[in-house]
């Protein structure tokens, strides 16, 4: 077959297309975004549109599985928190058409607020997990994950990290499969999780655990190389395998090695390498999941080395250099960074609408003192830094609205928040409803650039709908104001914003001006 040069994300997307998916569901989030974008570009005849958030995406994918077709849902690691409810319960309902979930973790927090490890979610839901080490494996595993999902009737999780998601390499594809035809579940009550029925479904999931383990033991992706010699044995998970091979090419590591890419942990394989090793080194990206399990509660009589004992750092992504020193190789820079070099952090673009909003907001908030503006997740989070110093929170999608309400409940006045248009329709609307119900004095500023800009300008569900949405939620139309963030409107914007911030009830101020990047691209096309 044709050799393609694909990002890890794209390899997964190509694998899903070739596995015959009928639907791809996602909300943009670095480093997972390119999965959906690839399907949109290359998957003719496949439903591939952005969802409002990760929870709606997961449920829509589950619905397509119910209807007998194959579906994939992709998100960044924190997106799986949003989708955790349907995710956990889909393990109990099981699936009809194959359902594969991709969670892209971001150790080192290149573009995230934490570095949670999605393998724990797989263990939590008690479903099989794949962790590819290469772009080729990402392709192959995605294809196999759909087969596994249908064989056992459960969703399968694929966990990747930024490094693989955003690294390109050769991928060879296999013959594509056609899409499945519509067919409803054989068991009509499979998806009804009434307690009495859910208990039965849960027992089924528990009974499958032995089979998942057997599948891991015989997985082509879990590879034991049992060289004897009493050396330190190495368990290399996912991309950890690449870093081991960087220093020992052609598999010439002198001790026992287990390449681990499918979970649950293959206990027999681990036992065999454990017996042949004087100590064990665990190379895993993210949290020390495997290392913790090997250690158990009581000390084992072998030295387990990894992120817990300090052989590797407890946080941050693995690098070839960290693995080199864990293996006992010296790591030396030949040259250092000259002192003349200064940091160049990301910044709002010249002409960005968020900047004009923050200039107006800063002027209004001067009279009320610092610390009274909450914010959210998007390019506008850069408003926390100089020169704006305008906002004081960024926690999770939508939290600006609800935290502003909570602070208002505590008596803080004024209580203001800044949220992007796409973040608002992702998870901000329900919080605003809380404020409307209680007539809470909060001002919700929606910085509407008509795009999900930070991840590359994807279409926003909020575009042209914000006023109607806020009215529908019950905000008084007198206190839904739309302003245009431009320098020439500054004084007028300050005046109106101040008035709404002083209003003692819920108010919404929409600063509407398109993202200059998406606008430039649109004009280039036309």
């Amino acid at each position, binding site marked *: 077959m044709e050799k393609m040069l694909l990002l890890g994300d794209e390899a997964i997307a190509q694998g899903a297309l070739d596995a015959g998916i009928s639907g791809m569901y996602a909300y943009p989030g670095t480093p997972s975004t390119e999965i959906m974008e690839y399907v949109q570009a290359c998957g003719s005849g496949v439903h591939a549109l952005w969802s409002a958030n990760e929870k709606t995406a997961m449920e829509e994918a589950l619905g397509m599985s119910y209807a007998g077709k194959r579906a994939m849902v992709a998100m960044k690691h924190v997106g799986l928190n949003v989708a955790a409810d349907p995710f956990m319960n889909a393990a109990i309902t099981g699936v009809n058409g194959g359902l594969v979930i991709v969670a892209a973790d971001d150790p080192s927090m290149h573009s995230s607020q934490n570095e949670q490890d999605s393998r724990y979610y797989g263990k939590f839901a008690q479903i099989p997990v794949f962790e590819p080490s290469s772009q080729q494996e990402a392709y192959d595993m995605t294809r196999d994950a759909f087969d596994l999902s249908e064989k056992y009737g459960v969703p399968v999780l694929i966990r990747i990290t930024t490094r693989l998601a955003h690294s390109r390499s050769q991928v060879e594809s296999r013959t594509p499969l056609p899409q499945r035809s519509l067919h409803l579940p054989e068991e009509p009550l499979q998806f009804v999780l009434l307690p009495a029925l859910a208990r039965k479904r849960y027992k089924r999931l528990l009974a499958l655990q032995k089979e998942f383990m057997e599948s891991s033991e015989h997985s082509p992706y879990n590879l034991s190389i049992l060289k004897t010699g009493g050396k330190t044995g190495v368990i290399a998970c996912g991309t950890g395998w690449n870093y081991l091979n960087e220093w020992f090419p052609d598999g010439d590591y002198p001790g026992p090695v287990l390449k681990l890419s499918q979970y649950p942990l293959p206990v027999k394989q681990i036992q065999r390498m454990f017996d042949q090793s004087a100590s064990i080194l665990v190379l895993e990206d993210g949290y020390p999941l495997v290392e913790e399990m090997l250690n158990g509660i009581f000390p084992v009589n072998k030295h387990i080395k990894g992120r817990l004992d300090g052989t590797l750092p407890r946080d941050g992504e693995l690098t070839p*250099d960290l693995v080199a020193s864990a293996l006992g190789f010296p790591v030396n820079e030949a040259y250092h960074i000259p002192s003349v070099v200064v940091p160049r952090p990301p910044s709002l673009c010249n002409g960005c609408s968020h900047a004009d909003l923050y200039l107006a907001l800063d002027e209004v908030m001067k009279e009320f003192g610092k610390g009274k503006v909450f914010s959210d997740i998007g390019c506008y989070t850069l408003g926390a830094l100089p020169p704006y110093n305008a906002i004081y929170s960024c926690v999770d999608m939508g939290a600006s609205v609800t935290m502003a309400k909570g602070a208002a409940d505590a008596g803080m006045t004024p209580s203001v928040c800044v949220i992007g248009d796409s973040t608002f329709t992702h998870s901000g609307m329900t919080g605003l409803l809380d404020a409307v119900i209680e007539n809470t004095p909060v001002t919700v500023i929606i910085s509407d650039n008509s795009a999900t800009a930070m991840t590359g300008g994807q279409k926003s569900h909020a575009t042209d709908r914000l006023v109607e949405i806020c009215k529908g939620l019950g905000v008084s139309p007198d206190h839904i104001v739309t302003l245009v963030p431009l320098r020439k409107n500054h004084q007028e914007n300050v005046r109106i914003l101040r008035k709404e911030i002083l209003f003692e009830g819920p108010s919404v101020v929409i600063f509407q001006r398109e993202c200059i990047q998406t606008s430039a691209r649109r004009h280039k096309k036309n």
Partner: protein
Amino acid sequence: MKTDIILCGVGGQGIISISAVLGIAALEENMHIKQSEIHGMSQRGGSVQSHVRISSNPVASDLIPLANAGLILSVEPMEALRYLPWLSPGGWIVSNNQPFLNIPDYPPVESLMQEYKSRKNAVLINADEIASRCGSAKASNMVMLGAASRFIHLKPESLMHGLEKLFAQKGSSVIDLNLKAFDAGRQASVAL
């Protein structure tokens, strides 16, 4: 045969295109390749880097280990120096000498040039000027790829073919402009 390259600059300067041309050319020569990129969090205006590894043997790590890159290819002079810890002993820096000024505390350009003067294996060229002469300052990234091409174990023809493929949809005038820029960069680099 192996080339490990740190590709760097400022977001929006066209690093992804350089990386893409290298990828197409490597595939054409049946080489193994891994390219690790940085996406997301409005990198526009921030420092960006890409690790490109091209080898006749399979490539293991997506990241280049410290002190292992034979080449730093930069479209901005301060950014090149940021990645020096990755440069191998005796490795080459090929960089544009035109600073990208978007931060208040950018160092005096003379102090950057002083750093370059103290190094043996550095090729500094004015890619903006050369690109403008070829027809558009936007092609400065391809000038830099041309300038660096003599340190990359890929045939210049493969790179030029990769460039043609990358810009195929943009029409022959864009292709010609970029080919010209590539060639002018290569000439400028050899002439130094």
